[in-house]
């Protein structure tokens, strides 16, 4: 070779050509030719590297570095392209003549409707500032009844048929004991929801189950009022069922809250004029609610003159049945996959255009 001086643009120029040639090589043999052309014993890059020795000593390291980097990139590209060509050779699946054939498919899965509804309900309350509180399904009589203003031997206990483990231990009939446990450990202000499974010793029928999900809410602070309760409950119902829902509070006795009410919403089927869904009443009972009884505060060690609070509770199956038109509460635990699949489709009803 002559003593020519290396043009500094040469490595870049070679790389550019090499990249184009390698990318366009469409067989393994063609690719091998390119490898020899650039990296073979007499390849362009190899020659170039050799000629570095003829350059001035001070320029050699920088130039060598540039050429080596080009060499490495070309090597990687060759390897990648070789893998591509090799795999194409291996499979060689002819493109099917009919592009409308079905695509590859696997099994489909999805959430259970109960958990889906529970999650939707939780999210609404999280957005309103409620935190999550949970407790055991198997509960002490004390937390399930006594601390909630159900005296022993009182007919109000007949309202909830109870499964007992023994005299003191039972399956909770409501998630309210979670609230008592929470109040024992925390000082107001507090604002929680307690979802979970509850149990009633009742023979199952289309509208009664011996185990179902309930969610209760509790808000305690210095001046929480019945008015605040109405607002929170109304906001939830409208968020879940639609913003045009009307809400009414009907006085009703519950041992735990006082004043207490049953909460009705206008029937979404008929908008209040009466249909099958609401039993022609125009209104549907959604939940029980009320102001926390001072006794309950005393049990929790709060000063009933310092704090007021409200509580509400609803059945998750019930609101799911109403929202999705499910006719029998027993379907939730029957787990017929043909039933469950109906709720896997993503829905964006209510999205404003």
């Amino acid at each position, binding site marked *: 070779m002559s003593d020519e001086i290396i043009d500094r643009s040469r490595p870049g120029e070679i790389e550019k050509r090499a990249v184009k040639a390698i990318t366009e090589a469409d067989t393994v043999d063609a690719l091998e030719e390119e490898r020899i052309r650039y990296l073979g014993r007499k390849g362009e890059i190899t020659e170039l590297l050799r000629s570095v020795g003829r350059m001035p000593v001070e320029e050699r390291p920088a130039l060598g570095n540039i050429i080596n980097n080009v060499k490495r990139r070309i090597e990687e590209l060759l390897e990648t392209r070789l893998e591509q060509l090799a795999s194409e050779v291996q499979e060689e699946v002819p493109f099917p003549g009919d592009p409308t054939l079905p695509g590859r*498919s696997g099994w489909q899965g999805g959430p259970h409707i109960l958990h889906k509804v529970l999650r939707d309900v939780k999210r609404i309350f999280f957005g309103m500032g409620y935190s999550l509180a949970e407790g*055991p*399904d198997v509960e002490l009589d004390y937390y399930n009844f006594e601390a909630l203003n159900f005296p022993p031997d009182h*007919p*109000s206990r007949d309202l909830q048929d109870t*499964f007992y*483990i023994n005299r003191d231990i039972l399956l909770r009939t409501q998630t309210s004991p979670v609230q008592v446990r929470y109040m024992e450990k925390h000082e107001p202000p507090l604002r929680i929801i307690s979802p979970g499974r509850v149990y009633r010793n009742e023979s199952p029928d289309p509208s009664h189950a011996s185990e179902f999900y309930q969610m209760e809410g509790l808000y305690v602070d210095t001046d929480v009022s019945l008015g*605040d309760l109405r607002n929170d409950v109304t906001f939830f119902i409208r968020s879940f069922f639609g913003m045009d829902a009307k809400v009414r509070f*009907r006085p009703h006795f519950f041992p735990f809250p006082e004043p207490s009410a049953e909460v009705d919403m206008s029937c979404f089927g008929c908008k209040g004029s009466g249909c099958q869904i609401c039993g022609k009443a125009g209104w549907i009972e959604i939940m029980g609610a009320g102001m926390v009884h001072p006794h309950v505060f005393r049990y929790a060690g709060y000063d009933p003159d310092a704090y007021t609070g409200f509580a509400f509770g609803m059945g998750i199956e019930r609101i799911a049945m109403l929202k999705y038109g499910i006719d029998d509460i027993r379907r939730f635990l029957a787990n017929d*996959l043909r039933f469950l699949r109906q709720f896997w489709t993503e829905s964006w009803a209510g999205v404003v255009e």
Partner: protein
Amino acid sequence: MGGGGGMKVSLNWLKRYVEIDEDVDLLADDLSMFGLNVEEVTNLAPDFSGIVFGKVLEVQRHPKADRLSLCTVDAGSGEPLRIVCGAANVRPGLGVPVAVHGAVLPGGFKIKRTKIRGEVSEGMICSEKELMIGEDAEGIMELDFEETPGTSLEGRLGTSDYILDIEVTPNRPDLLSHIGVAREIAALYRRPLGEPERLELAAGSTFDLSVEDGADCPRYTAAFVEDVTIGPSSEWLKNLLTAAGVKPVNNIVDITNFVLMEMGQPLHAFDLDTLRRETIVVRRARKGEDLRTLDGITRELDREILVIADGERPVALAGVMGGSDTEIREGTRRILLESAMFEPRLVRRAKERFRLETEASYRFEREGDIGITLQALERACFLIRELGAGRPVPQYAESLADPGSIGERTVALRTKQANRVMGTHLTSGEIVSLLGRLALGATASGNNVTVSVPTFRRDLREEIDLIEEVARVYGYDNIGRESSSRGTVFATVSPADIRNERICAYLASRSFAEVVTSSFMDPEDPVKFGWGETDPRCRPIEIANPLTAAQSVLRTSLVPGLLGVIQRNSPTEQEGMRIFEYGKTFLRAQSGSGLPNEELHVAAALARKADPLQWIEQQRRVDYFDMKGELEALLDRLGVSTDVRMLPTENDNHPFVYKWVVKGRQLAEGGRIPRHVTGRYGIETPVYYFDLLIDALPVSARGELGYSRTSPYPLVKRDLCLVAGERVAFADIQNVIVRSTKYLESIRLFDYYTGGHLGESKRSYTFRLSFRSKEGTLADSDVDREIEKILSDLNRELQVTLRR
């Protein structure tokens, strides 16, 4: 009535005490919004149409039948109608109900023009029975009023009344009476309430009455009636009782029932001449005593049971039911009327012991009104005299433990507190007037209201009870418009909740269908499953009062529930099933509060085919590695895959079940459910499962995500083909490789075989190892050193060698 918590009130009966002009449906709605939930309104009027007033003009004998008549009747239709009639009392001039062509009788029978024994009949003259307004089927009904022929008789015949079925909660026993409901209506519509008439009685009867313990029976009052004439009651009384669902018996029993339904106070009438001694003792029964109650059943008694005795023997179960020996009968001449108040818990105990729920026990166990026992007697005596059933004795006998108990109680209410709870701005004066509508006397003094609570509202004990009444009368719908929840409390997120939701969402995205099964389990499940005897899952917690035997214990595992789902879905899911459940199991706790350990699990099961049937792939049966791949991917997602060790389970019944242990704690279990187990659940195909204990996930794995820089340097790949003895596990080889290297980026096993020319006891593993440094380009010599280190460690520790 039973324990359902309802009271059936008759609208006509209510109208005796309060004016009601409202349409019954409006009344029902208004009551519901006032806190008295009306569950049903029933119209008692007979249900017929097309029945009109008719005038009989002529009566002739039917030419072909002796007992039939041919009548000409003016039914307002212009031409008189010809009607064949079989009644003996039909005669010209009579006003009768006529069912014309097209009329519908109660029960749905439709009247048509027809021929009877050859003669045309253009309608029917009706009897009371046919219209279902009476029992008389003998003759046609003779109307005792005049009307223009053709006038509809709808609403003119029979009883016209409505029954309102009101839900009554345990705190409001006062609503178990017509007066109580009328009092609420009076408050609702701001109308005066009428009081029933009474015959005033005086104290001073010399009758021998004693109560053993005033705590058991705080008040007992008795009145006496002589010259009793037992007979049927008047029609109005019978009608009202029938409407309210009480069967009329005789005048005395009907009057006691009437007072019960009117005032809510149960009365009991004893035939005084059947008492062995003219004495009443209220006492606990003695062991060995018994009593035959009115229903004819002999009840064995003991100290737990409160009875009414006559000095020799029990004659009634206090507050529940009377005895049959002393009941009112045809020849009764003298009676003792009992009106008392018993300890609710004793009545409840007797009711439960004897499974005997009566109108009386239902009210007594809800703590009746101690203040009205005497008024109830006076009311009954008034009716007995008015209806000529006997001659009341002017003196009554009484035992009253605490004279203060029948007076009004004073409860204070702070106006400020009421407004605070309700979110309102009411004045003390407004609160006084709201309470006044409920017949609660109240006086205001500045911020304080003092309320006198009568005995019929024993549920109003403290301030909050009064606030509820104020809110109710003021109207819940008038509250809360201007109030707003303040943002004083902010939500905190629950990392565990988020993690658990993500586990479920992940498995759903991995094409598992989520199921939710019962917390109960069949006690046979541990046996069917064949868990070892020392396995805590074999000792489930038992329910003392289960619904069925198959639901009599709490589940100790989610897996039996999953098998149940697979079995039930098998007929419709022929191809394959992938399901999972997230939920609690319940295991006996060693110590503490007595509550079980509630463990949070997520369990998944796979059965039948790995993929759906399709044209592009061979369908394959699901296998152990499908399950294991899903579990490993889940563990990887949860950030624990590198800490987990896999071990065999010690249960010989489950040879292909393994456990995954992290830091000495079992995190998961999984494998193939043995065929003999699936067979017991009626499943024919193999089922693979895993069961992960969420509570065992190490807290450290919950760390926040972070970024680490990716290396820009090139990757070096080497394939390594190794031969190992059969006692060496893949996992051990992989562990050594990972531990031995510095630059290993990934490791994949891509070939495995055993037997063949290797010999029976050898296994061959081929790995593809990828190396990369973060510091610079790896030279071949760097990678060679890595490989040498791997091979030497493998050889030393596991006698694994390079295949040649």
